[in-house]
């Protein structure tokens, strides 16, 4: 199956191929990202690591690290 991923920080969209039944945690692994430092969002709402993705899903990935006051 194929999932469309918008990487928010990099402001670019990539298509990721995953085995059927893959979860958000599998997607993060494929992107080489840690779940403790990234949030996956679908339709404006965060989704947990165990959420099962489906072919054609469109998600956004937000890294949580930043720097400020």
């Amino acid at each position, binding site marked *: 199956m194929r999932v469309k991923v918008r990487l*928010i*920080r990099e402001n670019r969209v990539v298509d990721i191929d995953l085995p059927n039944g893959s979860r958000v945690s599998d997607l993060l692994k494929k992107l080489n990202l*840690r*779940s*403790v*430092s990234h*949030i996956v*969002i679908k339709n404006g*709402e*965060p*989704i*947990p*690591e*165990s*959420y*099962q993705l*489906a072919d054609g899903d469109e998600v956004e990935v*937000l*890294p*949580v*690290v*930043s*720097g*400020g*006051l």
Partner: protein
Amino acid sequence: MAVKCSRCGKPAVAEIRYTRSRLCREHLIEFIERRFRKGNEEFKVFKNIRRIVAAVSGGKDSLAMLYLLHRFSSVYGYEIIGLTIDLGIDRGKEYSTKSVEAAVESFKKLDIEYVVVDLSREYGYTIDFIRDRGRRLGIRRPVCSVCGITKRYIMNRFALELGADAVATGHNLNDLAQFIFTNMYGGHIDELIKMYPKLPGGNGFTAKIKPVFMLYEKETTLYSILNNIRFHHDTCPHLENGIGGRFQTAIREKLEQLEEEFPGFMLNYVLTYMRRIRPLMVSGSSMGGDGDGDSGEKISVGRCRICGMPSLRDVCAFCSIRSRVSLKVSETISRSRGD
């Protein structure tokens, strides 16, 4: 396929691995707010605090802190004044402009009185200017160090002027785990002791509090998203090798790796330090504290002869930076006059 909330069966928005739970929007907000209260109550963070200056950068940590402080202000009986600083960081990203806009939007939304300090207008320099010209002006510190000195000075000075009992910053659990690890490695005992949710004031210093110290970075981000808080998620354009350089980035990554492998690692690490190790260190240090952060700071400091703020040297680090900048400005004026 949606995952169900462990408490109510509604669709879960996040998995909290260290509690082995999956929570829906409402229960996650409730969970984060309960942890905020639990942590601040355990370490008596709001004891004797009636007025807080909330230092807000416009990022998710300080904005989540602002909303949480606001949400529980009547419970703990303090008032909040917002403070944000326009540091003059642009680099084609309008970094400071966007950060200040996000902070001000939330101050207005929550109807919180606030102050915007424009570094350029108020003190005659910007962080971009220091990055570009600092070395030539004889400022040897890295730009991030100048930025830190600047922010700490302004936060303290405005908090004193506004009659606040404490300055609140948005340091989260990941920040504290990293600072504790780094200072432990370097043996910087006085810095290590500062890694605590509340540091006492006195001697020209306002007390400092870190109300979101018990929340993971991911939790402050989730709280901001779920509360529709518009935050600025860009990183500072001056961060070339991550926050604090390559070594700090490596430590942060290793800690995240441990957290991924052993959920709750950072929480246990920070709480073990605060509950069991720090109390043993405090008695032997120059900085006192009776455990609830209410005793006066015991370091004796002099005063800066320029600004009158506390300083270990004749001229404080902030005035030293300013004097180098204004020296350059006056040289330029002299040259243009032909003096």
